[in-house]
């Protein structure tokens, strides 16, 4: 299951190695009904994002039309068909976070990073995204940076949070 964690930290994986690992992973999952989302999730974990060429490989291997695989990919905001920055900042705009000022967080982040939602900073460091509820409503407003959740964020805290990543 945890194919992502097999990645060796001391060696930067080549493109070819990544693709091979993805193909192995697909072989493991492809005969299970309803496993497409899991496959896409793991493939994005390995490759960083889901470009058309990779989705073509996946579609062929799971024997589904490319348009269907692409449709699923573009349905879920968690999947990205464009390269992402090293860190993906996701601002929750689910009901609780929205009510507690999620929108102001976005405004401030676009100011600090100089990018709009869905874009990546020129240095490839940050990608800014929006999502709808991460199940952390009690901590609202919340953002995540890669896998780390930041709770009760207010716009004034953001500069300090971002600086931790430089």
């Amino acid at each position, binding site marked *: 299951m945890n194919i992502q964690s097999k990645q060796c930290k001391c060696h930067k994986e080549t493109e070819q190695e990544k693709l091979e690992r993805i193909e192995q992973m697909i072989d493991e999952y492809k005969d299970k009904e309803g496993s497409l989302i899991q496959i896409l999730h793991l493939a994005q974990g390995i490759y960083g994002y889901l470009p058309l060429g990779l989705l073509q490989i996946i579609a062929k291997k799971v024997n589904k039309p*490319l348009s269907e695989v692409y449709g699923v990919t573009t349905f879920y905001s968690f999947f990205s068909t464009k390269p992402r920055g090293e860190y993906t900042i996701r601002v929750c705009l689910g009901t609780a976070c929205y009510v507690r000022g999620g929108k102001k967080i976005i405004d401030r982040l676009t100011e600090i990073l100089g990018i709009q939602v869905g874009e990546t900073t020129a240095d490839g460091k940050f990608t800014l995204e929006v999502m709808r509820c991460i199940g952390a409503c009690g901590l609202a407003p919340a953002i995540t940076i890669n896998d780390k959740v930041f709770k009760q964020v207010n716009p004034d805290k953001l500069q300090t949070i971002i600086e931790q990543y430089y």
Partner: protein
Amino acid sequence: MVNLTINNKKITADEGMTIFEAAKQNNILIPHFCYLEGIHQIGSCRICVVEVEGAKSLQASCMVQVKEGMTVYTNTEKVKKARKLLYELMLSDHPRDCLSCSRNQNCEFQKLGELIQISEFRFEGEKSKTFVDDSSPSIVRDTSKCILCRRCVTVCNQIQGIGIMNVQKRGFKTVIGPAAELPLNSVNCINCGQCTIVCPVGALKEKDSIQNVWNALFDKNKRVVIQTAPAIRAALGEEFGYEAGTLVTGKMVTALREIGFDDVFDTNFAADLTIIEEGNELLKRVKAAITSKENTLPMITSCSPGWIKYIEHVFPNQLDHLSTCKSPHMMLGALVKSYYAEKLGLNPKDIYVVSVMPCTAKKFEITRPEMKRNGIPDVDAVLTTRELARMIKDAGLEFDELEDGEFDNPLGLSTGAADIFAATGGVMEAALRTVYELVTGRELPFESLHIEPIVGLNQIKTADITIENPLPEYRFLDGFILKIAVTSGAKGAEILMEQIAGSESPYHFIEVMGCPGGCISGGGQPRPTDSSIRQKRLEAIYREDEGKKLRKSHENPFIKALYEEYLKEPLGHKPHELLHTSYTKRGVYNEFLK
């Protein structure tokens, strides 16, 4: 049986029926939109909602099955309000330029509006970002018109098994189309046009060729030749209010002449010619398989350009199985620009050939590089049945007042064998009427020459034809059991092709037509095409065949004369140059083209 009440009327319905079907059966028509009988029932538009007593919310009647004792209301205040609101919301993101839309007066969304009757546009807001994709020579996609009903998705995926159309993105940004907004001409679309038949609005339609044809007609220096496929005569009438299955061959010919075409030829003539070439090709391949190691059986028919593009994409390593015969209208085009041009003493450049086809894929076919000689295309334009009807109306002809006319010769006379090219099983039957007689000297031993097991609308049909007492030159075939299979629609083709790819195919000869039912329900035929309309067109085609004196291609006197005078031997040098073609490996992602 289930007892229920709809609008205080006590009715009974079969178990498993939906509320919509039960109502329809009892002459209560519930307004609906995305529903398409037997094809698309996913309740995506919600227009057909009804009130069911005891249910918390309104129910989509096309989805909910009848239950014993159910009480349903289809016209309450709540239902009518919801229906109107749904319509208004759909309309709020739809362009209201009906007068410049090709579906004007023929649009299901307009018809729904007529029923619901709104007096103002209540919702004005943001509009979706839209684009027009006219990259394909066959089909145009206009996303501004799309109302997201998803019928095309169902037809492309479930019925045809191709799947180039799907739902992309979500919410307000939803687009129906290929992956990554790829243009239609760059994906594995086979151009079958089945999506253009089911699209309720102007979002999916054939690429318009009408203006090009008028321009050719206006050009005094061009001789404009038109030909019509066998399936047109059995469907064109529907565009003028005739009952489905009415044959309008004679009126169609007169209409074409009155529009101003110089020659009105019949693709059927070339269908007879196809049989001579393809029949001989089959015998050559069977002989090679029996007497040598060269085995390219099963041989598969090649009349349907949608099917050809399908095999090029999905089974690019099996192209040797395709007959090398061009499709009939391409053969006729090639003959018009060679044989007929020589006869008239005209430069082929001064001849413009138009084919009226039940097919959108034919529009792509004429652009293939193999379909040109010395830079001159065999056929210059393809009109669908629908486009021809628009031209006839535009020309001011009262179709039902027209006298019956006759096709011009020498490329207009045909046998009944050519007529049945329009229906699934027809090309196979026509071929065997000739091949069997060629080999045995006797008529094909079936009642009324119909190979019963391969007639009809089933997905895959098979038969065994045993050859007994052949003529001396075909002695090697004595006792040979010719195994044949017929399918229509890409999904059936996939099944038969998987067998071939796995070297497990038991067949010697296979007929494939790209659209379910064959050309009678091609992507260029009148809307709607449902199973009963398909059946009526099929019967009409067989009626046309049975009404002919000559019913076997090799009996066509003009075909005989054409070989004596011009083509000489079947599969000979001239036929090879004019009537045969080659194919292109494509791959699902067109990877072989790069």
